Each structure stands twice: as structure tokens, then as C-alpha cells.
């Protein structure tokens, strides 16, 4: 535990020191060169904007956050479901895989205006875009997890007369969990992008809308405050998933990854 704590501190200390150093440097340069706040506000002014206009920021944060989480949740449910389908049906696998691969190449952001045409400027467009972008990595990762069963494990299960149902619940599902979580970590980031872009294009609320609005008003401190709030929200969402991952995928400890798992 003590060693773990010390290692954690060492992991945190480096990046933290560099980040703080960069922020201080930023503050110093902006002040020394008298850069106008409209071009690049100093960090202190961004923090001030965050404090002063917290009500405005939060008002716009909630709808974005809500749509992000909802779109993400739908992509997880949909992605895992489709992954199971293509794992068990060769026909669906053949039908879906080319579409999934091709859709990886299409910049899905470009569909945003089309969604506005179809679903209007409301929340539906944002939600669907978030879902669509987050869905594909979710599906691909989960499908990989369900399908990449160790051949020896499959043989062992057959020797002990495992039914297909048992193989699914007792082997495929736990085997897929680490893959599902890496899919979730990609998808949550993409869901945020989906919502923000959709709000850029057409919306009357949300952080994306606020960023665009502040840009139009040349209120750069507000704009950067909004970006900062959005980044913090994104980090928290990612952190929550990483936290659950450590809980759920307990057999793959971080010490495995760093290769120092003793004992």
C-alpha cells in the first residue's frame, strides 16, 4: 500500500509540475508581452470568468452533459448488443463488418448538418450524433472481446461439457469486459465531440452553443472558461469509467500493464 501510494505520487508529481509550470509561464508571457485578453486571456482571467459566470456555464453544461451521457449509454447498449449478434451469426457478421469498417473511414461529424435537416435543431440531433459516433468503436471493441476467446479455454470448457449458454455467460462475457471498457473510454470522448459539434451547428443551449456564442461576442475569457469546464467534465466522465473498470475488471491490475506484478 505504501509503495503503491508512493508510486502514485511519483506518477502524479511529474505531469502536475509540468502543467503548473506551463500555466505559470502562460500567465507570465501574456502579462509581459501585454497580449490582449481578446486574443489570449491569462489563466487568472479564465479562472475569474469561471467563477463569475458559473451560473451561465452550469446552465449550458447540464444539457450537454445529459445528452453526452445518454448518447454514450445508448451506444454502449447498442454496441454490445450488435457485438453479440455478430459474434453468434455468421450472416450478420458478414453483413455488418464491411459497413462498420467503411463507416470508420467516414468522418461522422460531417453528417451533423444532415441530422439537423432530419431531426431539427433540438436535442434529438445532438443525441443521435453522439450515439452514432460513439457506437462504432463500442461495437468493434466489444465484438473483439466476445470473439477473442483463448482456444485452450474453449477446449477446456468443451471437455467439461459447457453449453453455449454457459460459454457465453461464464467465458465470453467476462472475457469481453476489458474490451468493452476500452471501447467505453473511446466512446465517452467521442460522445462529447458529437454533442459539442451538433451544438456548434445548430442549438440554443449547451456548452457547444456557449463556446460559439462567446466567440461571436469576442468574449474570449468566457469561451476559454467554457472550454475548460467542458474539459473538466470530460475528464471526470473518463475518470468514472476508468474507476469502474478497475472495479469490474479486477483481474487485470494496473501492475500487469506496467509489468511489475510481483507475488
Amino acid at each position, binding site marked *: 500500500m505504501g509503495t503503491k501510494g508512493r508510486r502514485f505520487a511519483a506518477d502524479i508529481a511529474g505531469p502536475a509540475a509540468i502543467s503548473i509550470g506551463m500555466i505559470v509561464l502562460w500567465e507570465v508571457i501574456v502579462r509581459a508581452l501585454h497580449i490582449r485578453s481578446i486574443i489570449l486571456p491569462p489563466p487568472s482571467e479564465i479562472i475569474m470568468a469561471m467563477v463569475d459566470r458559473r451560473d451561465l456555464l452550469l446552465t449550458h453544461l447540464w444539457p450537454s452533459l445529459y445528452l453526452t451521457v445518454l448518447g454514450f449509454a445508448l451506444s454502449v447498449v447498442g454496441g454490445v448488443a450488435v457485438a453479440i449478434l455478430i459474434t453468434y451469426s455468421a450472416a450478420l457478421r458478414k453483413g455488418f463488418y464491411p459497413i462498420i469498417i467503411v463507416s470508420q473511414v467516414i468522418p461522422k461529424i460531417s453528417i451533423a448538418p444532415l441530422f439537423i435537416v432530419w431531426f431539427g435543431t433540438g436535442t434529438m440531433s445532438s443525441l443521435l450524433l453522439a450515439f452514432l459516433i460513439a457506437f462504432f468503436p463500442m461495437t468493434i471493441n466489444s465484438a473483439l472481446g466476445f470473439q477473442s476467446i483463448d482456444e485452450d479455454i474453449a*477446449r477446456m470448457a468443451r471437455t*467439461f461439457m*459447457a453449453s453455449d449458454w454457459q460459454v457465453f455467460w461464464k467465458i465470453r462475457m467476462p472475457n469481453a469486459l476489458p474490451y468493452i471498457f476500452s471501447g467505453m473510454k473511446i466512446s465517452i470522448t467521442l460522445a462529447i465531440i458529437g454533442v459539442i459539434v451538433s451544438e456548434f451547428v445548430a442549438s440554443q443551449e449547451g456548452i457547444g452553443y456557449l463556446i460559439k456564442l462567446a466567440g461571436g461576442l469576442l468574449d474570449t475569457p468566457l469561451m476559454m472558461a467554457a472550454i475548460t469546464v467542458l474539459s473538466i467534465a470530460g475528464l471526470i466522465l473518463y475518470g468514472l469509467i476508468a474507476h469502474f473498470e478497475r472495479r469490474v475488471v479486477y483481474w487485470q491490475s494496473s501492475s500487469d500493464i506496467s509489468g511489475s506484478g510481483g507475488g
Partner: protein
Amino acid sequence: MAPVSQTKEMPAAVRALPALSVRKVRKLYNELEAIKNVSLEVAQNEFVSLLGPSGCGKSTLLTMIAGLLKQTEGEISINGTPVTGPRPEIGMVFQQPVLLPWRTILDNVLFPVELLKLPRDKYVPRAMELLAMAKIDDFAGSLPRQLSGGMRQRASICRALVHDPAILLMDEPFSALDALTRDEMGVELLRIWQANRKTVVFVTHSIREAAFLSDRVVVMGRRPATIVEEMTIDLPRPRQISLTEDENFNRYVRALRKAIEASHGH
């Protein structure tokens, strides 16, 4: 006393039905003949090793006995019933431990119990007993990655025995371990076997291992695999590692080596 190679029936086979009977089995992979006319009988509670060079088809034979692969010709039966697929009276140990990384050692050992829908509560004491016998009961609640390779393989032996199968099939179970652990595991296996008498079919390419463990060693030649020699190992039990320094033991080892070398001749 010189080792005698024999092809006669085992006396035990007369008393009871053979635990395992392989009759004129042949296996073709496409056009390739992997196994050619193999017949073998294993008596109840007999420890038989299938000894042969790597890739000679001995593992294929074991896979067919386990019901995971269908023979092209011939018949395999366990306690008189033909094998048509995997059966609950078989326990299998593989080259690798093949433990599920998300399950504790105890839950891994209980895995066959779960799959066969046997009452888990009733089998927990047995599982713990087996783990104690394998000297890894302290690790019942640990995850596989916290155990050494030898300990993991011991857990997989416990798993193969937990549902009290009639036949234990072992497919080169110690070949992935280092030499020292390997010798130790042989002694451990015999100790567990002594307390849990079962019919064992043990596949290996180690002559010493086969001679040390077995009641009888069946030597298989290169592809297409056939039985080239059967040798009863008439050494006292329980066997300790000191047996490997015994002159009688080494005479068996030499005789087995000669049989394998002779099979390379043709």
C-alpha cells in the same frame, strides 16, 4: 529383474470391465493418416502413459478419448459405453493450466461442478480438500496470476478431479514447467493419485517421466502413429524421487529409449 515388455492382457482387465478401451482406431486428417490401427485397453485405476516423440499423434488420441474429436475408424469406449462426445466421467489436464483469470483458484477448481450443474455447496469441501492435498489451499481465494506456473498447474489438476471423474486424461501437463518443478510435480501427482485412485492416461514425451509415473508405458511411433511397444513398469509404490537413481528404474528408461529408437528405424 529385467523389464519385460508385454502385450498380454492386464490381470485387472479380466476382473472388471476395462476403464478405457480403444479398438482399431484410425484417424485421417483429409488424406493424411495421423493414427493407424491403435488398440489399447486400460484397466480400472491403472496409470498408463502414452510415450512418443512430439507430433506423433498421441495428443490426437487423447483428444479423441476426451470426445473432442471423432476417429475415422474404430471404436473408443469408456466403461463399456462408446464415446460420442465429451462426458462427465472425464477429467482433463492440459499442457497449460488454462485457468480463467477472473476466477479465484477455488472458483476455477469448481468450474466443472458449475458446468455440470452439480450442487456447488456440496463440492466446496471436496475442492478445498483437493487444494490442501496439492498444498495450495492457502491460495483458494487468490487469482491465478498470483500463483506460480507449477501452482497453477496443480490447481488445474484439482479442477480435473473435483467432479470425481472415472478417468483422468493428462496431455503433457508438466511440459511447460522447468525441470525441477517438473520432477516435484510428478511426485505430487502420484501422491494425489494415491489418495484418489483413478484411471489415468498420461501423454508425455519424457521417457523418465513416463517410467516414473506409470504402471504401464505405451510407446507410440512417428506418424502415422501406431503402438510400437508396451511395457509394464514393475516398481514399488509409493514412488519417491529417489527412485530415479535406482538401477531397476534406469533399466526401464534404457529399455524404453531403445524401443523409441527402434521405432525411428522404419
